[in-house]
């Protein structure tokens, strides 16, 4: 991974951060650069250290070693209440004994803002999140989605340099999530604030974030745009964590300019990949192919690479899409997703049909395992 420390746009710099709790390593050698104005997601399963990293940005945890710079300022000895960084908590953490208005005004009061300005700013913040009619309510009279908006208004009213979101959708039900994801992004982009969010939900990260850092066991595995991470995963963990994937392990058989041929014992034909890679003939590699990039057909493919014969063992019908589980002669089962273009069911495959799977040389990605 290239170091971006000289990146002029870099707004938050996380340098060699480590954090241990009672000898348990929560965050390990993390280096990250977050650009001004972007929405950045830390994605990982629970316990991967993403929340700890977020809490270090907020100042609730101090790094065991390393440095955090926000807008060029070292955060080492700055307590949470003096940082221009605000966090939206997973539970939203609204003050139950205060009305919505007082909740939003709280942060400004701490700064000693004059009363008339507080009033004006609170009204602005509430109308930004379309909650202007709920100012006199108390938090327990609001629905989950409304609570989230109030929590957001309470933070944005402080005009923070950096906005932190901890699992922003975790307290909402599924239907509301998709709607709120887009709304939240819309508001954040309108305000133009730099935002770091933490989530375990890959769809949420891909919907909301401009760039994603995939984390596992305290380390960052890969950083990139949603498309980069999905289409060009660096390693097996990323490929398997985001979306579904078919992985063939094998050895490099031939290396030509701009393409490489890989032999795998899991498939009878060779795997041809059209982008070059660094590696000698005989090196063990893994090839990842996404299910939607595989075509299932009855006709024998004409190429001499990138196809296999198999039997349809399982069909997952999802309406718009169907995923076929095709078992190859080697015993390996490959998932292939097809769009159901035709309404008629007769042209489609059924259980125990013989079928050929094939894909283009651009579809495979070589992983470092």
């Amino acid at each position, binding site marked *: 991974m290239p170091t971006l420390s000289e990146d002029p746009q870099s707004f938050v710099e996380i340098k060699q951060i480590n954090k241990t709790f009672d000898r348990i390593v929560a965050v390990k050698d993390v280096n990250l650069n977050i650009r001004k104005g972007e929405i950045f997601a830390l994605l990982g399963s629970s316990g991967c250290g993403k929340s700890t990293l977020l809490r270090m940005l907020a100042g609730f945890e101090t790094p065991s070693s390393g440095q955090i710079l926000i807008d060029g300022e070292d955060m080492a000895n700055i307590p949470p209440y003096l940082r221009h960084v605000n*966090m939206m908590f*997973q*539970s939203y953490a*609204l003050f139950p004994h205060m009305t919505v208005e007082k909740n939003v005004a*709280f942060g400004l009061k701490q700064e000693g803002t004059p009363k008339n300005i507080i009033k004006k700013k609170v009204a602005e913040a509430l109308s930004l999140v379309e909650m202007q009619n709920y100012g006199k309510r108390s938090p327990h009279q609001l629905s*989950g989605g409304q609570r989230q908006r109030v929590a957001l208004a309470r933070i944005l009213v402080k005009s923070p340099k950096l906005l932190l979101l901890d699992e922003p959708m975790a307290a*909402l*039900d599924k239907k509301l999530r998709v709607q709120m994801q887009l709304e939240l992004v819309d508001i954040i982009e309108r305000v133009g604030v730099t935002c770091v969010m933490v989530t375990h939900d890959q769809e949420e990260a891909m919907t909301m974030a401009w760039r994603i850092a995939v984390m596992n066991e305290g380390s960052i595995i890969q950083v990139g745009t949603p498309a980069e991470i999905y289409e060009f995963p660096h390693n097996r963990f990323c490929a398997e964590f985001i979306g579904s994937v078919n992985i063939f392990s094998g050895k490099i058989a031939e290396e030509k300019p701009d393409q490489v041929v890989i032999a795998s014992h899991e498939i009878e034909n060779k795997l041809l990949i059209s982008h070059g890679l660094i590696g000698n003939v005989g090196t063990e590699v893994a090839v990842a192919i996404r299910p939607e990039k595989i075509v299932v057909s009855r006709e024998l493919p004409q190429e001499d690479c990138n196809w296999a014969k198999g039997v349809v063992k399982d069909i997952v019908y999802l309406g718009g899409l169907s995923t076929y589980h095709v078992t190859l002669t080697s015993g390996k089962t490959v998932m292939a997703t097809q769009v159901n273009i035709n309404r008629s069911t007769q042209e489609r495959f059924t259980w125990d049909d013989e079928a050929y799977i094939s894909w283009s040389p651009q579809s495979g990605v070589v992983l470092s395992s």
Partner: protein
Amino acid sequence: MKPHMSLSIMFFLAFGYAFLYIPIAILMFYSFNISKLVTVWGGFSFKWYGELLQDQGIIDAAWSSLKIAFLTACGALILGTVAGFVMVRFRRFRGKTLFSSMITAPLVMPEVITGLSLLLLFVSMDQMLGWPEGRGTLTIWIAHVTFASSFVAIIVSSRLRDMDISIEEAAMDLGAPPLKVFFVITLPIISPALVSGWLLAFTLSLDDLVIASFVSGPGSTTLPMKVFSSVRLGISPKINAIATIIVIVVSIGVVFSTWIMLQMEKKRKLEIESMMPSNA
């Protein structure tokens, strides 16, 4: 409650309540007895309540009891809240569990031992430091605060444990320093627990006989001590009258604190219910 309660269950229930409350009812009943003999009914009268008002000793004792109970409740509330807060919110350190359980020791310690040990402490402090000079209201207050704080600490810590810690963090995140967070956010949220803790400490102090007997001095007799010593000289219906008043005062206190706890519980239930995602 089930709609059809069997007769035998009704009987046991009645028996249980009778066992608890008939003695108190009898005591209260005879406080209105005109006769000087406690157990012989001579007719209804407020005579003994009138005499009670004439008895300067009892009035002084009642007054000093109330004063001590009030000050104890305030002192125990401060000390117990701080102790409870530290027990729950302070970061883990070696021996934290030991310290936390040591706070609750006065709950299980026999009062005789607490009283005696405090007496020895006060005597030796008096000899070595010259403070507290002799024993009296001050020493009773110190002793009562000591044991009542642990009750307050338990009530406060259990409420704090239930409280969402991210509310405090959010306040800090929005720019409030820790001390301000404690006064502006934490205290208002746990206020029902503070009220019931204060009332409990007040009642405990008002009831205490054993510890007060050990650490009191010549000029400082509390009401329970006064009652106990006059019973030893012979039972007078006046005692029934004073007991009736104590029972009424304590009952009001208990009912009031229970009511506050219930309200708190109801409100919290409402909050929890409305926090459910299905309600969104």
